[in-house]
Each structure stands twice: as C-alpha cells, then as structure tokens.
C-alpha cells in the first residue's frame, strides 16, 4: 500500500486548466507578450483582472470565509503550469501565492484578514517585499527597520512589486521581527522598476522612508509566516517551471518536424531525436516532482520541505535545460529577438535563481535527510 498522495490531476483541476488555457490562448499569445515586454507597462493588468477576478484564480488559496475559493495548492499549481507555458506577464506568483500565503500564515486576529478579501477578488494586488532570490529557511531579513508603525529601509529585487497596491514587508522593530502591510502610493514608498533578465516578470526595488504600516504579525509569528510563504512559493514555482519546460519541449518538437535540412526533417536525425527523448523523460519526471510538492503543500504534509527542496532542485534545472535546448534546436531563428525562445530562456533562468537556486535547495535537503556535508 502506498502512502503517497494522488499525483494525478483531478477532474476539477483539468477543468480549471482548460479555462485558464482558453483565456491565455485568447489574450496572451507570445507575440503580444513580446510586444509588451519593452514598453512602460510590462504587465498585462487587463489579463490579470480577468484571470484574478473573472476566473477567481487570485483567491484559490484563500478560504471561503475571506471571500476566496477555498481551493488548495494543487489548483494553484495547475494555474502556474499554464502561466508558465504562456510566460504570462501577470503578478500571480507575487500576489496570489507569495503575499497571500504570508498573510494567510499570519493567523486570524492579527489584522491580515481584511486584506485577503480584496486580494482574493482581484480588486487589489500585493507583493511580498523580499528579494526574489530568497530561499525558504533564509534568516529573517534585516533590511527594513520598524519604529512604531513607520517603516524605513530598502529591499532590492522584489518580484511583482511594480504593480502592487499593497506590500507585505518583513521588518524588525524594537521588540523583534514583524510582518507589516504597507499601502503603495504616498511619497514615503518608492517602487522602482529594474531592467530585468526576465522581461515577462520584472523585479523592482522598494524604498520605504518612514512609510505608514500596519503590523499583521508580531515577533511570535512573523518569521514562521514569512517562511511559510517562501516554502509555498518555492513548492509552487516548480509547477510554473514545469509549464515552461513543457512549452519549450512542445515548441521544439513541432519545429524539428517542419524544418528540413539535408533533404529531411531535422527531427528525423537520431542526434536530435535522442536529445528530445531525454528532454521528454526529464519533463515527465519534473511533473512528478512538482505534483508531489503541490500535494504535500495542499495537505500540510510533514514531508513538504523535502518535497519542495526536491522539486526546486529538479524542476529548476529541467526548465533551464528545456529552454536552452529550445534555443539550440531552433538554430539561428532560436537566437533572434523575434522568436519567443528567449522569453522562455529568460523566464527559466530567472525561475532557477528565484526562491533558492538548485544548489541551495540541495544544501537544505542535505540537512533535511541527514546527508551532511564534508567537514574540512
């Protein structure tokens, strides 16, 4: 008898996937993504409103009593697979996963609850103010200082911050660490868009200069709430990486069937076939790792940290490999700006760094499964 959770997709998840895929096919062809990525509006906020409010995707993790869908991490994972396939320029990961998970982990009664309704409805958007590269288990950040209900400090490389209405900010005050909610808008909050490697999901720097804030978690729960958000983000990012890898594989397989050289489709050459067979096997295994991480997160399984480290260590590398193979096997066209391969390469590489690199996740795993490093 197996004690592992169901790693298949349920009918509900399949139906959700179909709705998201339809919307993205309609509103988010890669040509549109490419056109937008160099403009002053890198995010497609119209698409975001349809996805978040229209389809209810922003509230999947939020319980029904706060106005959410009361779904689970499994459904979120399916949405992320589709967003990854489309390299969709929407703040789903930053708002509906990272910031929402942080607020949910604050616990009832700490004042986070009233933020959740508008976030779940897609009326407002939030970001978690930590560097995007922060892995689960990282020390509580010291870059923002709290004095009463005023925050001062700077956080660099925050994902999805440039379109956020709210920031969930980890800060340290006289009595220790806390999580705070800051409204973006006043002169005390500056969010500066960076020129980012990932054109479809840019990062921004957040500068707080005595910004008004509301504490939603105190010293007893702030560090755990932040970590829970980072675990959720990392566990679910694996599904986005799966989507990126799937799309790269499909695009490449489609291309090598139609590109003729030396009198036959290049997909008929064994050197190409074997590389794509290996890539298919890698994507197949990435799906197992991502599904397991999402399933563990959905049920707060004690294995969730191992599952997350495994999924991140594995899916990060599969997505990067898939994107690199996509560029290479498309040959010259794969290296041009006009072909979408580079959007996927940039997304894949940024995802690999985000929320802990594979090497950091392997180091975390070493501690979790008792395989200690060599002592010098």
């Amino acid at each position, binding site marked *: 008898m197996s004690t*592992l959770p169901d790693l*298949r997709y349920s009918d509900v998840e399949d139906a959700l996937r179909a709705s998201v895929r339809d919307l993205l096919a309609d509103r988010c062809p890669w040509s549109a993504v490419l056109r937008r990525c160099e403009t002053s509006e890198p995010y497609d906020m119209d698409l975001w409103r349809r996805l978040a409010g229209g389809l209810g995707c922003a509230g999947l993790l939020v319980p029904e009593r706060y106005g959410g869908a009361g779904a689970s991490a499994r459904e979120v994972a399916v949405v992320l697979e589709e967003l990854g396939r489309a390299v969709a320029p929407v703040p789903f990961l930053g708002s509906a996963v990272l910031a929402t998970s942080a607020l949910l982990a604050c616990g009832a009664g700490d004042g986070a609850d009233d933020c959740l309704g508008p976030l779940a409805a897609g009326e407002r958007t939030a970001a978690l103010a930590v560097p995007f590269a922060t892995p689960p288990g990282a020390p509580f950040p010291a870059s923002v200082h709290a004095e009463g209900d005023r925050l001062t400090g700077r956080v660099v490389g925050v994902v999805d911050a440039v379109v956020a209405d709210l920031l969930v900010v980890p800060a340290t005050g006289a009595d220790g660490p806390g999580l705070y909610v800051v409204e973006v808008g006043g002169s005390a909050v500056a969010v500066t868009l960076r020129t980012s490697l990932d054109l479809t999901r840019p990062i921004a720097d957040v500068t707080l200069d005595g910004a008004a804030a509301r504490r939603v978690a105190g010293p007893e729960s702030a560090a755990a709430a932040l970590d829970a958000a980072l675990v959720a983000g990392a566990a679910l990012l694996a599904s986005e990486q799966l989507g990126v890898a799937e799309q790269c594989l499909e695009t490449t397989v489609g291309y090598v069937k139609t590109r003729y050289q030396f009198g036959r489709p290049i997909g008929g050459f064994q050197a190409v*076939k074997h590389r794509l067979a290996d890539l*298919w*096997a890698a994507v*197949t295994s990435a799906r197992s*790792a991502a599904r397991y991480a999402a399933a563990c997160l959905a049920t707060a399984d004690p294995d969730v940290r191992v599952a997350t480290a495994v999924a991140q260590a594995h899916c990060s590398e599969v997505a990067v490999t898939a994107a690199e193979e996509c560029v290479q096997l498309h040959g010259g066209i794969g290296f041009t700006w006009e072909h979408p391969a580079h959007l996927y390469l940039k997304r894949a590489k940024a995802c690999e760094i985000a929320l802990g690199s594979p090497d950091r996740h392997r180091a975390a*795993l070493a501690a979790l499964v008792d*395989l200690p*490093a060599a002592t010098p």
Partner: protein
Amino acid sequence: MPVTATTSVPDAERLRALVRDFLATHDPRERLRFLRARFDAGLAWVHYPEGLGGLGLPRALQSVVDEEFAAAGAPDNAPRRNLIGLGMVAPTILRFGTEEQKRRFLRPLWTGEEAWCQLFSEPGAGSDLAVLATRAVRDGDDWVVTGQKVWTSRAHEADWAILLARTDPDVPKHRGLTYFLCDMHSPGVVVRPLRQATGEAEFNEVFLNRVRIPDAHRLGAVGDGWRVAQTTLMNERIAIGGGAAPRETGALGVVARTWRERPELRTPGLHDELLRLWVAWEVNRLTNERIRQQLANGQPGPEGSAVKLAFARLNQRVTGLELTLLAGEGLAYDDWTMRRPAGVDFTQRSPGYRYLRAKGNSIEGGTSEILRNIIAERVLGLPPEPRTDKDVPWKDLPR
C-alpha cells in the same frame, strides 16, 4: 471502459468477501493445492476471463485480492521469480492462444509449476530483433528448429520457452517470423551458462539442434510472429517497471547509509553528486508512483519508458559514486566465482558488483538508444529512422 477508484468500491467489497470465503475453505499449508484452487476460483488474476484464473473484472482490483491473501499469510505464487511467465508469456497466450493452449498452459504457469523463459535475442539480433536467423522448417505435424539464442534468463530452470523463429527467409524480415511455445526438455535443446562482466551467469545461451515442436504449440498464424512478439515486448516494459519503492531503496540507500556512517570518506565534490543523485532517485520514485496510480485507474501512459531510461543512468552513476566514495576499499571485489543467481539483488553484494551489474541496466530489456528512438517516434511523433531493409527479403540482408 476506464475504471475509476470510486466505481470499483462495491466490486472490491465483493472480492474481499470471496477471498475470505476461499480462505475459510482451503488449507494454505498445502501450497500447490491451495494455489491451484485459487486459480480455479478465479482469484489468480481477476482481470482474466472466468475459467482461466480470473473473473473478468477490472485489473485495478487485483491489488485487493493480493492484499487480502497477503494479510492472511497465504502462500503466493512467487511472482518475483516468475516475471517472464506472469508478466510476458501469460498476456501473450491469453491474446493469441487457442482455447486449448490457454487451458493447457495458463494454470501451471500461474502456480509456478512450469517455469518459462524467452528465446528471442540472438548473437546477430539484439536491438534489431526482427533480423533473427533461427530457422523453423515444417515437417509433417511438426516444425524442426535450428539456431542459437542468447541472453536467456532462467533457461537452465525453465520448462517452457516462448520462441521466435524464421519460417520464411524469402520475405522481408518482419514478415517471415513465427511464434512458438517450446518445450525446454525436448531433445536438441542445449543450455549453457553465459558468464557476465560480474563473473556470474544470470543468463544463458541456448542452442537449438533440430528441435521438434508440434504445430499445436505454434502461437498465432504462420508468419505472424512479429505481431505476437509485440504483445510480449509491450508487456515486458510494463512488467519491468514495478510500483514505487520506499524512499532511499536500492543502491542509493546503500550509499546514503555509508555516507552517514563513515564521515571520514566525505568530500565536497561527492557531496554534491550524492545530493544530485538523491534528488533524481526520489523524482524517479515519484514518477513510478504516478505510473502506478494511473495504471490502477485504467490510465496507462508512456511514462514507464522515462523511468527505465532514467533508472539505468541513475543506477550507473550511484554505483560509480559508491565505489569512488569507498576509495581503497572499492578496489576489492567480493567474489569472482562463477555462480547462477536466482535474481538480481543490488543490495546484498559488494560495491564492485553493483557497479559492474548496473552496466547491464541500459542494455537489458531494450537498450537506452532504442528506448530513445521509441520515445521520439511513438510519444513525440518524430520521423522514423530510415529503413534501408524494409522491402528486402531477409535472405538478401547484409549480416
């Protein structure tokens, strides 16, 4: 009809009751009598037809029966020692056999009274199996078979073999083959151990010197052997991929324990490699489990090829890592004495054995290269390899 876990619940309860009734009326201490009765009661393989060891139920329900018998401590039919018979021969006989053949062969196969082996590969026909040269010539009611087979596991213990032989050399290679059920005790069958790089002989070479096989033991039509063999080979891939084992089993479990118990052996480079392999091993385990869940719900998929491909490479890297980790100790080997193991065990012998035996993983049951071709062509739909031998009579092929 696709089977889901929910629709099978009433069937599962009914089956449990059947097994309990059976257990109440049969003595498990009389092993063979017990197994024969279990077959006759349709509780051998529940998805087989009634009268042939089954009840015509969905395959997903087999686990219910197996669990009930195991929980009662009843004897089983040693499925791990009978992989070829149960996993490959039985489904082929079920699909292509005459009623007489099904009734003659399936029961002793299932109970383990008759052991089976597979006479397919030849010295000149491995990945390109269809080019095989063993000849079968019609002589009255018999066929007379002459040739040499190779890599035959368990031939030295087998009572029967599935045999692929050439019955028409004048047509292209796939069309001139016929499939037979060969009595391994027939005059002219000579089995010799084939020693491997590990020093032991798991396999055999089998010489067939004018072996007579009655036409009644032909499976499928004359010239239709390739199609029959496809069923066997398809089931081989399913039989090789098992269910999910617990975390850290096999060679990885051995090396992880060594790492924990022997801190003096650790180096930074090997630490990184160990963690990479731990992750990959775990991910492969999860894929195996995903396949098991899909199969149990009647949704077979092509993922088994991914598991086999990945496992071969992983096992080779893990066993190589273990040898390096052990440094000087890895230079010793446990025993080169020629022996004939009943099965492959990656945990009981020395690290050197594991390292050498793992080299077979990317060759046995289909090489990794052929597996990649299959994935590329059948899963991804890429163009097939050019076939220069397609319309050439077998006798004119370069060999």
